[in-house]
């Protein structure tokens, strides 16, 4: 169970894993996530399911090595197993033929965006995708995105690839150029906040997929609370996607830092070992 069958480096700190999880492979839909735990002392961490293969009974996840828990996952090799994998969790993306979809992905947020882009394309939409990364080296899944998009615009902070600038600049180009029926934005919370501000000006319905802190992922703990339209929602069971124009991103950003001091301490401990 949960055996790693493929491991691939997408960039220095971003790793793609294919894991044996036949039941999840069969039941998952775009937008769903899993919770996994590495080792008996490990933390439960949520990760979006990027792809699945019913025949091989595998699911694909992409993880960025950013802290103690993701480092433990990134250290696992092909043939080793992940202690616990549970899912699929969360509400799947509402995918239907809406016309033109603008898909905005930033950093490692491009990974969860991929299955949604694929889903919208297969549903008959025209999909225009804007991908943003700090530099060329950190840009992931470009080929896969091109496969399922009618057009892909690349933005890098340093101009090392595509156009220099932020994802919002690429997005605005499209919004000025053509009628967009729906937008989906996934990436760092700050990026999603500015994407939401932009699409609101153009009156384009927008979904954002949130990466809140979670423990159980089944609605039990409420660590993933987020305010949407003035009401408290749980990212794990009500989301992870919400109407981006109604999300309180400032509160979301604040809540992502809830355990910052504890994380810094854990990283220091880990580096010393």
């Amino acid at each position, binding site marked *: 169970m949960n055996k790693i069958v493929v491991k691939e480096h997408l960039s220095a700190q971003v790793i793609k894993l294919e894991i044996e999880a036949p039941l999840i492979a069969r039941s998952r839909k775009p937008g769903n996530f899993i919770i996994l735990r590495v080792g008996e002392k490990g933390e439960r961490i949520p990760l979006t399911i990027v792809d699945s293969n019913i025949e091989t009974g595998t699911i694909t996840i992409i993880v960025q090595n950013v802290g103690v828990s993701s480092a433990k996952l990134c250290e696992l090799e092909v043939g080793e197993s992940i202690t616990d994998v549970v899912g699929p969790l969360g509400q799947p993306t509402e995918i239907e033929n809406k016309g033109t979809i603008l898909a905005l992905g930033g950093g490692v947020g491009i990974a969860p965006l991929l299955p949604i882009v694929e889903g919208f394309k297969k549903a008959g939409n025209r999909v225009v995708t804007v991908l943003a990364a700090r530099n060329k080296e950190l840009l992931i899944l470009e080929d896969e995105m091109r496969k399922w998009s009618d057009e892909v615009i690349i933005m890098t902070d340093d101009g090392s690839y595509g156009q220099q600038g932020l994802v919002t600049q690429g997005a605005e180009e499209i919004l000025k150029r053509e009628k967009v029926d729906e937008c989906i934005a996934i990436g760092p919370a700050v990026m999603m906040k500015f994407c939401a501000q932009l699409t609101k000006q153009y009156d384009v319905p927008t979904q954002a997929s949130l990466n809140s802190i979670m*423990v159980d992922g089944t609605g039990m703990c409420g660590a993933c609370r987020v305010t949407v339209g003035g009401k408290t929602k749980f990212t794990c069971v009500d989301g992870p996607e919400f109407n981006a124009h109604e999300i309180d991103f400032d509160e979301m950003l604040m809540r992502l830092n*809830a355990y910052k001091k504890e994380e810094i301490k854990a990283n220091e*401990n880990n580096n010393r070992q």
Partner: protein
Amino acid sequence: MTIAAEILKQERNAEWRAELRKVIKNKDRMTIERVKMPEMDPMERIKYQDKEVNAGLDLEQAQREASRCMDCANPTCIEGCPVSINIPKFVKQIETGDVLAAASTLKETSALPAVCGRVCPQEKQCEAQCFYTQKLQKTPVAIGYLERFAADYERESGKMSVPQVAPANGIKVAAIGSGPASLSFAGDMVKLGYDVTVFEALHEIGGVLKYGIPEFRLPNSIVDVELDNMRQMGVKFENNYVVGRTATIDDLREQGFKAFFVASGAGLPRFMNIPGENFNGVMSSNEYLTRVNLMNAANDNFDTPVLKGKSIAVIGGGNTAMDSVRTAKRLGAERAMIVYRRTREEMPARVEEVHHAQEEGIEFLNLANPVEYFANEEGRVNKMRLQRMELGEPDPSGRRRPVPVDDFFEEDVDVVVVAVGVSPNPLIPSTMPDLEVSRWGTIEVNEEAMQSSIPDLFAGGDIVRGGATVILAMGDGRKAAASMHEYLQKN
């Protein structure tokens, strides 16, 4: 006379019981003082998250306490037990010193005796119905302590008996959730010969016994022993399996499962919807206790963090609130406070838990209710505003209603744990449109049979009750097992 009553009578008439009754005169039995539970010193125990407060009785204490029981002809105590443990029989077995036999008696009807002996509100159940309480106005026989004693004695003896199970009938049934209701259900069904699988969403089996109740009240190792016992009886456990998501009930029907017992619990924490409740440091008791109990967050060797505050307020007056506030004290809080809108009298928590909390230096801000939280520039809670309350007329539950007074005050806090109740987990109902649920989201069942609007689907525990106790959940599990057995024999 019912068959059960007939059996009880026959057992009471057994020669050893009749003889034992004559050994000590009833009037002498009545003069014995109720045993006091040996406890760890409060100032010592608050240093440890994982050391049990109650130390348990020794054999001499247990036998003496057991000899208080007069082995009544009409044992009303059994009527007070949701799982109908044959109380006089096991108590008299302790009196004779045959403690292993007492443990077997417990396991005839209870899947989790070592757990129930620790967490049941006996004072509201068996002990409330004891002859001493009812007729003599004296302190009841310490049935709960004795139950715990017998279960612990057996476990420590290394001679755990595995209850007899009927020959396998090959019929597959599923329990959803692995808390007390499911475990009780699974124990009864496996004894009847069914092929039972228990599905659990988390990585650990045990539900609230693992993620909720702290180690100082119920050590996880004790739950594990009871689970091992169930495995030996043939119960299968599947962790990391969310029924409704990983596979649906229909998928399981296709795999040959003939009936289902849904005991997915009251998983959804309630908040109060007051300003500032989403600041960092304000969390549900489910989150706080799960981090500490399930994820071992208080231990630096584990990766999951928990916020350790200097001044912690826990909102609520139930057992979960007591568990949270006592956990906070053990994690090093200088001030650990209960904020409750009524008074000690109306608190739903067990008397023993409130008493232990007081001994440990927990502060009680009664007749107070939070109205707003404030935070520093980083968004971490640092203060709460409270409104004073007074007691008004009794509400439908008979408790006096809290009425707000125009009087406010503030307290500095850096962690707030909200323990004001839970709502049913909506996962299963949301994936089954035909399933009838109440407006509170609990699954509607026929109370006797625990059968839902879908004939092969039974339910019990907090998903039906909305938030109750371990033992009531276990009673539901037993009832559901009996009626599911009947249903499957007919179909």
